[in-house]
């Protein structure tokens, strides 16, 4: 522990910000972020925006460019009403996983807040985006802007050509299936030879102005070969192989195999699922992403303060904001609305630093690999790079932290009239609580598992979906039926959704 020896004049004194001051603060932050913490970031592009522009960004899921859809207008109207009436504040910043890394800072922020926000977003989030394996493997930070521009123009062109209503119908349906439009485990299957041929035919047919509709369907594809087809190829097993079933990515399946969609409609499905896939890693790493950014800003503002680069007043303002952000109300507090990802992520990362620097015997027993590691920065960078929320909690949630948060598990068995406290923060409960909490962040568990299991294009063309039910949790019914109506529109024929108990499913 070193005491503060202010050696330099503060970077800024007033609360008003200017571009020169921002530049100065950014340079000071960068020195610590890269030099001390060893972060590796995309070049930053920091944009100052007004409240209205922030609302714009809100409504378009935080993306800088988005195609037009009524639901974004609805979100804007709602957020605007909440903001105008003071029921909801706006975020200080929004950051986009792109190269260069764009962050939007609100013009209303004070200079102290701008400094905090830069450390948080332009270095914390930025490092996480660039280094976490999920983002590296599943998102294309270089190409996202071009893709968004393409999507916006493409959908605008479709509206021009086919009418706003026709496009809206497809977008509504695609949005309803957005969460079922991602590959969770495997890469998209490589196009088979048939599909490549089909694409080729499609292009040719398109060029010669013939109807391309049916060429996609395997029925038409197989026409010339029908005679030689064996039973194995036409049967269920053959279909499964050819159409990559079972398929968890319903939008992908519809895009490839729907018998009724036109090429532009397929392209719209593709756009929606590409964006869903791009945003999917962010859903999987809320705790880690916010934890990383919060840890980084906390470390940086303390370092700046230690160097005397920020005044006492500004430091207090940042700390006040930081404390609000990482506040975790207890379960019986009226403000409680689930576990705060900022609080949990930040606490876990601080805990890792503690385990490296001042391990207790308990830490040595639980974390032999990192306890006492002299390079806590390296340990953290490794964690940021190689985990997602679920595995991070499973790996790093310590008994110390479970006690600090006084975590307990509440078991809700629908056959019992009452809820039971099944685990508390004692020796017997640590592992179970850690496992339960980790599962709470496992998207594969909290999102319903629905897969396309069969579609006989030569038969009755019914699309069969299977929902694998775990722990007796079924889909919410009224919205399920509405989604199925959308699905029917995209498939063109009957759609059946069967619920199968997990233990019975093959």
């Amino acid at each position, binding site marked *: 522990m070193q005491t503060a020896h202010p050696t330099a004049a503060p970077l800024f004194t007033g609360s008003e910000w200017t*571009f020169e001051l921002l*530049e100065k603060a*950014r340079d000071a932050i960068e020195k610590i972020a890269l030099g001390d913490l060893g972060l590796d970031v995309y070049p930053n592009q920091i*944009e*100052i*925006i007004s409240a209205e*522009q922030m609302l*714009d960004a809100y409504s378009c899921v935080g993306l800088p460019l988005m195609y*037009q*859809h*009524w*639901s*974004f*207008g*609805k*979100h*804007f*109207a*709602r957020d605007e*009403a909440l903001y*105008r009436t003071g029921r909801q504040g706006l975020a200080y910043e929004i950051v986009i996983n792109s190269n260069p890394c764009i962050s939007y800072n609100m013009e209303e922020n004070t200079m102290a807040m701008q400094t905090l926000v830069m450390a948080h977003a332009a270095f914390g989030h930025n490092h996480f985006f660039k280094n976490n394996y999920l983002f590296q493997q599943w998102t294309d930070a270089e190409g996202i802007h071009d893709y968004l521009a393409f999507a916006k123009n493409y959908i605008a062109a479709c509206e021009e050509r086919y009418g*706003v209503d026709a496009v809206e119908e497809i977008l*509504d349906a695609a*949005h*309803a299936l*957005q*969460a079922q439009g991602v590959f969770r485990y495997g890469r998209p299957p490589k196009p088979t030879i048939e599909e490549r041929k089909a694409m080729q035919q499609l292009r040719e047919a398109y060029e010669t102005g013939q109807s391309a509709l049916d060429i996609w369907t395997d029925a038409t594809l197989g026409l010339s070969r029908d005679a030689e087809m064996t039973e194995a190829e036409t049967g269920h097993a053959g279909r499964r192989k050819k159409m990559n079933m079972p398929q968890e990515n319903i939008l992908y399946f519809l895009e490839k195999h729907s018998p009724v969609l036109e090429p532009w409609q397929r392209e719209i499905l593709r756009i929606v699922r590409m964006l869903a896939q791009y945003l999917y890693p962010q859903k999987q790493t809320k705790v880690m992403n916010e934890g990383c950014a919060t840890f980084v800003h906390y470390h940086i503002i303390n370092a700046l303060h230690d160097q005397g680069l920020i005044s006492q007043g500004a430091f207090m303002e940042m700390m006040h904001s930081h404390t609000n952000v990482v506040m975790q109300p*207890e*379960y*019986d507090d009226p403000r409680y*609305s*689930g*576990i705060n990802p900022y609080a949990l992520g930040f606490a876990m990362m601080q805990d890792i630093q503690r385990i490296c620097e001042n391990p207790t015997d308990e830490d040595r027993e639980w974390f032999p690999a990192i306890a006492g590691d002299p390079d806590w920065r390296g340990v953290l960078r490794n964690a940021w790079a190689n985990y997602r929320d679920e595995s991070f909690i499973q790996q790093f949630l310590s008994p110390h932290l479970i006690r600090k948060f*006084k*975590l*307990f*598990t*509440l*078991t*809700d*068995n*629908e056959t019992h009239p009452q*809820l*039971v*406290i*099944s685990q*508390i923060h004692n020796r017997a*409960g640590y592992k179970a609580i850690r496992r*339960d909490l980790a599962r*709470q962040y496992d998207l594969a568990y909290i*999102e319903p598992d629905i897969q396309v299991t069969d579609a006989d294009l030569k038969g009755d063309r019914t699309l069969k979906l299977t929902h694998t039910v775990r722990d*007796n*949790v*079924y*889909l*919410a*019914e009224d*919205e*399920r039926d509405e989604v199925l109506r*959308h699905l029917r529109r995209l498939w063109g024929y009957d759609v059946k959704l069967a619920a199968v108990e997990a233990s019975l499913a093959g």
Partner: protein
Amino acid sequence: MHHFIDRRANPKGKSLGNRQRFLRRARENIKERVDRSIREKSIGKGESVPENGEEITIPAKGLKEPRLYHGPGGNRRYVLPGNKDFVVGDTVDRPRGGAGEGGREASEDGDGDDEFSFTLTRDEYLEILFDGLELPDLVEKATVETETIGTRRAGLTTAGTPNNLNLVRTMRNSLGRRIALQRPSTKSQRELEDQIEELEGLEARSPSQDDLLVVLKTKLEGIIRKRRVVGYIDPLDLRFDTYVPEKIRNSRAVVFCLMDVSGSMQEREKDLAKRFFLLLHLFLTRCYEHTELVFVRHTHYAQEVDEETFFYARETGGTIVSTALEKMKEIIDDRYPSDEWNIYGAQASDGENFGNDSVRCRKLLTEELLPVCQFYAYVEIVEEAAQMLLDNAEVGEDLWQNYRQVKAAAAHFEMQRVSQPSHIYPIFREFFLPKVKG
């Protein structure tokens, strides 16, 4: 590398397209609420629709974004923070409204509410309020609109007056030409001059320096010559904005508000009349570029007054309706030539009139006013109890009966009875709904 970009000055309304799509989607619901709000609205001073818009609440049905997610029920485990004194095996009652304590099962769009509140801007509000209404165009006037000559931008030319010089285009051409013709920059000229000055400033120059001086001087001359020949801006570079004259049809309208202010017209009657005038004015403001209002009140004589006096000043006296019509005629002749102005008349009264003045009113209307008016509306304000009058258009006093004859003869004359604020908007709509031409 630029680190900071100031986006605050970017064009506003990036999500306007989304907004329009949203309003389009919710149109039916919004319309119903807007209609209701105008009916219930009490009209204070001035405008009834606030400048900064109107908050409305519509049912969320039809604006749902359905998703597949887990419903309530089943076997779950929640990890919660802040254990106080629970030990393993303790039981607690199931919280009411399902076991959503973990908060993870909420619908994704987060608004499971039945209602959706947001703010309509003034323009959107009026647009929806007057949706589907049209100006009556039964009388095709020779010139409904007046024409004036305006100007319109028409691209660029190479000749023009200096005040129309397009700097950006001119400088772009200039830069291109200078690069192409390799015009020496001011900087290179100054450098040479400095060098020469330095050499000349030396006390004693070596022969090589002398030679260099000569070379430099020649070079400088060359540069100066070239700079003179290849000008910074050449007449070739010049581009001028051009404007072409254009006929602009500008439409103007004047609304005459005529009201009986004799003793029998109380606050209630005036309020109803005001609502009607206000709607008419709002509507016409949207249809014409320029709208004026003329207020004429009458007892047994008519005066032109300002809005304040019109609605709030008290007056006593008898009732002679024709005086107001004469006044209107007089004002039209005086200030609003009918070939330049679209003239609208709106008259409110409680239906009483003096002696056989009503016949005179009918004559005035059919012979003098209606030929120059686009539209004339008469609203008779009756007692709330007078259901009989509301139901039966044939019953009525002298004025009503005479006006019925006017209506029979002129298609752009409308008359209605009202007794409650809620009647105003429906009859207003009725007046302006597009009519099938017979």
